[in-house]
């Protein structure tokens, strides 16, 4: 980056011709794809004349289901970039055995930094937030989350963060400090460019969004449950959502603080984390992992929730050991705050402290083990159907145990001293995040897609996708355990041991198969949309679901429930179906109040993006205007008095009776016909 001066600096900060990505052909191509992709999408929307539809039905919507779907769209888009970056890195390592390969070190450094940042903050977090948003209010029998506008603001702050990462591909370079951004390397003395600034503001936007989401979800679960929905009747997915939200509330602030202090160091020459003048970079490592370790469980707990739903639904059995699963989830949530030091065992504490944190880490294996057994016993003697969701869940169970065992190895400080900073660690956490987190999210995506859009996803392409993800994962990461044990450092741009070549080539093949898995997901979506009329499930219960989200039509009406359900059992919907009261008209319908659309959240997102962009490039007027505009949006909103819209009882009754008539004319299908065109979402009664 070059420093600019004079009037130009006043107007455009440090932005100049040098910021354009012409320093390497690969960067140019990457930037062109982003720019052309954005332009192409805009042109396509204009050509289809869908701007108004998009604006009024989606972007300004405060409906928790639509916000959830937008989160997942964002996650899938960013997943594509993350996977492509992963394949680029695998290709570099496969080629760069005693040769420089095709990526210069600086570019390779940017790639592993953006890959990690994107995969955690813009794939995993939006994916789980989206699923919880879509499912949780329906599972507890609520009409929306407690704070619908705040929900939209969280979404648009996350989108702003994601947009800033995409901008960093076009203007300037990203940080080369990894996703954890340790100072002093990320201080301005060592990385004077805009890279770490991009990273700081991207994380700040996303972490504020996540904190707000956590508050919103926790309050929703505490305050919005349907009558009779006691805590020990909550579906397990909602339990995991609750624990994750509480973790978000407590774990995100340390990250916001750590990045804010680093920003003060970089912008105002302060010395929180510098080597000299009283700085203490170990406090950064401490703060970052105070966030970072609970974050691991923020990511994995919702996946555990999805697996619990999938295992019990596709075994047609009550979840085995419900209470033990709940207590295990709570134990994991609390323990997750006691182990952060294991991320820096080798950074100088006394052995006794390391030992204490090592033991705490191993303890987490106990509640997790309880869960694995509970799921196996849920499957035992169930009416098991090998749906795509169940395939992901089975692969999870197998592979996650392997990853967990390597985690126990790493929790032993002396072992950690041997393999820390090697690809053994990389293999371990990918082993937790891909089969654990991502397979959970993909299983949930396949599971709830028919509820969201009213048609099932294509089975064949779903199976191909699942096979590719599973096989690709094994091939890509099992070899890294071997090379890691042999001492191959992580984040290596060039490799000097020719004997690693076969392993790295195998890993490259795995990477390509994962890419094929990603491609299959999109083909599946495309094929399913094309054939949607064959796979419609308007009645809304294609899998003989057990919890309340399946008690509505698919897609559900804006207000979710025609009348709020009375909950009598843990498997609330199954209880209703068994007693034949699932599809009955109500005695009495009431007017329903739902939030009106609002552009406030979009305005805040755009303003926050501008402000962050201004901060990155030192365009001070833009930073101030952006921040001011975000506050102004909040103030303007506070003058809007008419925020709710009433849906008359007659309209609700009409919709309900229409749906019930449709059900009366529908043939219920048995579990054998689940994947056939005959399944329009009415399940044959089990009794």
């Amino acid at each position, binding site marked *: 980056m070059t420093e600019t001066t004079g009037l130009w600096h006043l107007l455009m900060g440090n932005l100049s011709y040098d910021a354009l990505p012409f320093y390497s052909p690969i960067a140019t191509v990457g930037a062109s794809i982003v720019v052309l992709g954005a332009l192409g999408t805009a042109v396509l929307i204009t050509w289809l004349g869908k701007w108004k539809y998009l604006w009024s039905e989606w972007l300004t919507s405060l409906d928790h289901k639509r916000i959830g779907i937008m989160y997942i769209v964002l996650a899938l888009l960013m997943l594509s970039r993350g996977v492509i970056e992963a394949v680029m890195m695998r290709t570099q390592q496969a080629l760069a055995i005693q040769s420089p390969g095709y990526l210069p070190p600086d570019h390779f450094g940017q790639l592993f930094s953006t890959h990690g940042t994107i995969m955690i903050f813009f794939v995993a977090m939006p994916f789980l937030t989206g699923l919880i948003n879509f499912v949780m209010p329906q599972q507890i029998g609520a009409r929306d989350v407690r704070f619908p506008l705040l929900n939209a603001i969280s979404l648009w702050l996350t989108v702003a963060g994601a947009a800033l990462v995409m901008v960093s591909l076009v203007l300037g370079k990203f940080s080369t400090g990894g996703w954890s951004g340790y100072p002093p390397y990320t201080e301005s003395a060592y990385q004077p460019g805009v890279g770490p600034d991009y990273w700081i503001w991207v994380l700040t936007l996303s972490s504020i969004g996540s904190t707000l989401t956590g508050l919103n979800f926790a309050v929703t679960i*505490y305050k919005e449950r349907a009558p009779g929905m006691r805590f020990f009747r909550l579906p397990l997915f909602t339990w995991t959502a609750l624990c994750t939200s509480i973790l978000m509330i407590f774990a995100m602030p340390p990250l916001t603080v750590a990045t804010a202090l680093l920003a003060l160091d970089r912008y105002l020459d302060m010395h929180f984390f510098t080597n000299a003048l009283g700085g203490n970079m170990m406090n950064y490592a*401490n703060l970052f992992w105070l966030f970072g370790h609970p974050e691991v469980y923020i990511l994995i707990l919702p996946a555990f929730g999805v697996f619990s739903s999938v295992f019990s639904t596709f075994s047609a059995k009550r979840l085995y050991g419900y209470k033990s699963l709940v207590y295990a989830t709570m134990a994991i949530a*609390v323990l997750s*705050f006691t182990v*952060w*030091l294991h991320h820096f065992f080798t*950074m*100088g*504490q006394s052995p006794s*402290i390391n030992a204490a944190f090592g033991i705490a880490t191993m303890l987490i294996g106990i509640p997790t083990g309880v869960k694995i057994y509970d799921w196996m016993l849920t499957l035992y003697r169930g009416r098991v159907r090998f749906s795509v969701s169940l395939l992901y869940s089975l692969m999870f169970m197998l592979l996650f145990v392997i990853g967990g065992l390597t985690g126990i190895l790493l929790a032993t400080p002396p072992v950690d001293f041997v393999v820390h900073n090697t690809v053994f660690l990389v293999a371990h956490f990918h082993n937790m995040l891909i089969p654990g987190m991502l397979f959970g999210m993909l299983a949930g995506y396949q599971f709830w897609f028919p509820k969201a859009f009213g048609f099932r996803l294509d089975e064949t392409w779903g199976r191909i996708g699942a096979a590719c993800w599973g096989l690709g994962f094994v091939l890509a990461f099992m070899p890294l355990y071997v090379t890691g044990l042999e001492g191959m450092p992580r984040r290596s741009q060039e490799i000097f041991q020719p004997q690693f070549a076969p392993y790295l080539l195998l890993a490259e093949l795995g990477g390509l198969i994962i890419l094929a898995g990603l491609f299959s997901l999109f083909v599946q979506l495309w094929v399913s949309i094309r054939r949607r009329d064959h796979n419609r499930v308007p009645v809304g219960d294609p899998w003989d679901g057990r919890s309340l989200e399946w008690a509505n039509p698919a897609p559900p009406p804006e207000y979710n429930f025609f009348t709020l359900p009375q909950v009598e059992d843990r498997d609330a919907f199954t209880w209703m179906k068994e007693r034949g009261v699932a599809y009955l008209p109500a005695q009495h319908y009431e007017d329903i109040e739902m939030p009106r659309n609002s552009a406030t959240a979009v305005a805040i997102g755009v303003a926050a993006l501008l402000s962050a962009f201004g901060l990155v490039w030192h365009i001070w007027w833009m930073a101030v205007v952006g921040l001011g505009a975000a506050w102004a949006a909040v103030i303007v909103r506070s003058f809007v008095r008419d925020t709710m819209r009433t849906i008359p009882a007659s309209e609700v009754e009409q919709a309900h009776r229409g749906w019930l008539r449709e059900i009366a004319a529908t043939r219920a299908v048995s579990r054998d016909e689940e994947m056939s065109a005959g399944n329009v979402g009415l399940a044959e009664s089990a009794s």
Partner: protein
Amino acid sequence: MMDQQAQYAKERRSYLVGFLLALGLSVVSFALVAAKLLPADYLLTGVFVLGFVQLLVHFRFFLHINFSKSKRDDLDLLLFSTLIIVLMAGGTLVVLFNLHHRMT
């Protein structure tokens, strides 16, 4: 009607008690420091204890947190928050002082 009035009086009394307790605790804390009523070694501890008691007073009289069944959720959240904050802040102190000690 009488009920409501009685209720109102009861609530007002509770707020007043809380206010007086909070005021008293603050005055005592300031007095301890201003008049050096305790030896220097105990002063800090004394102020901390009074501050903690004041915290409980605020919870009890102003935020209406008590041990009754209807307040269980609030109490649980509060205790959990306390636990996490103790873990995070206490843990940070242990780790950083340990590192500091080993550097000197």
